[in-house]
């Protein structure tokens, strides 16, 4: 029965992908992509990667879905009026040829993967006791491959600055998005008011669980970021102007604390991003907590987009 489930799921993923690529209307394609992200989360559960499933559900489907759907809705009208050039049959055919070759090559690679498979699991498992975490994926993210995670957070900061810099000069430092009017008796207000406390509790739960079970700062910050966006959409809170010092400090807090602890590793444990064994767990939790705050703020701001209101003096 499990095998049949997997076959149906795989066929469904491919069918939704074909629809997403093939359909003419871009809005329909975006909704297809949201469905694709949801189905991928199911696939990750089936291949025993619940940490990735959580990330895909929160970011790949939830946040990306919200971002794309709202962008596609705003672009819909203009797209209908602007002419879309159609690629010629020659380009189409050669593209099909290339893609079939690439897919076939990958399929051959999948079928001829080395046996027994190489694995880093024992190495990662050996590093677990030294940092006091029971979740191997969180341990890899924060200790074994900590440099990757550090660079990733820096990429997020750069992306946020890049999005802000797309605003016209005179709006630099202003608040993103339009001010949403609070609709006191409306469904959106009800949703935001009820969901916000629950979402924050669940986000913190996913964060806290991350040291023993699937979860962690990335998934938690995606939920917290989504809750912030929801509060802004409903008009419960207004988006802060991007010139605010506290906001900018919050964005770099995570990477800076991470870097400082990384350099302190030279003195305390003899290497960049090395943690002294006796304090490893509190240090790791500190890094994860500040990273969660920074990432949640950046994910929210990335969805909110560049400043669109004049800076108030």
């Amino acid at each position, binding site marked *: 029965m499990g095998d049949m*489930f997997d076959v149906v799921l795989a066929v469904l993923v491919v069918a939704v992908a074909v629809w997403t690529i093939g359909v003419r209307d871009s*809005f*329909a394609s975006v909704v297809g992509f949201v*469905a694709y992200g949801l189905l991928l989360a199911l696939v990750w559960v089936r291949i025993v990667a619940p940490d990735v499933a959580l990330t895909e559900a*929160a970011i790949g489907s939830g*946040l990306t879905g919200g971002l794309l759907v709202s962008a596609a809705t705003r672009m819909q009208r203009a797209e209908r009026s602007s002419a879309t050039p159609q690629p010629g049959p020659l380009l189409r055919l050669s593209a099909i040829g290339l893609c079939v070759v690439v897919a076939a090559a990958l399929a051959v690679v999948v079928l001829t993967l080395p046996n027994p498979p190489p694995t880093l699991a024992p190495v990662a498992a050996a590093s677990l006791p030294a940092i006091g975490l029971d979740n191997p994926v969180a341990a890899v993210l924060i200790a074994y491959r900590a440099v990757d995670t550090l660079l990733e957070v820096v990429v997020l900061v750069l992306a946020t600055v890049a999005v802000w810099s797309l605003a016209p000069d005179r709006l630099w430092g202003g608040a993103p998005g339009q001010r949403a009017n609070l609709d006191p008796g409306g469904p*959106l207000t009800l949703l935001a008011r009820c*969901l916000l406390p629950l979402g924050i509790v669940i986000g913190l739960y996913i964060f806290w669980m991350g040291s023993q079970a699937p979860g962690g700062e990335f998934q938690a910050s995606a939920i917290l970021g989504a809750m912030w*966006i929801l509060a802004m959409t409903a008009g419960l809170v207004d988006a802060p102007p991007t010139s605010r010092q506290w906001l900018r400090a919050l964005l770099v807090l995570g990477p800076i604390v991470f870097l400082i602890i990384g350099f302190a590793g030279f003195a305390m444990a003899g290497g960049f991003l090395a943690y002294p064994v006796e304090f490893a767990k509190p240090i790791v939790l500190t890094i994860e907590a500040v990273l969660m705050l920074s990432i949640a703020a950046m994910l929210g701001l990335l969805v909110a987009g560049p400043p669109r209101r004049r800076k108030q003096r």
Partner: protein
Amino acid sequence: MREFLLFAALFVLATVAVGLLRLLYGPAGTDRVMSAQLLGTGGIAVLLLLGAADEMPSSIDVALTLAVLAAFVSAAFVKAATQTEETTRGDETEA
């Protein structure tokens, strides 16, 4: 019991997959969003069933995450759709 739960998961997945035909036919954007919403709820149910069948407790956490964000995409859609008039007249043309 395990086989039954897996069967139920398969059945729910197949059912909401058929519901995705509404994504194909549309005709309006709202109909397409509805089919995605149905797939979301179905996905939550499938995750709960899989979690119980395979004794994989973290699957429930994935379902919990999906449930928190269930309304997020629809809220973004409605916000953008009802603001279209405002933005074309408002600060966007000002630039």
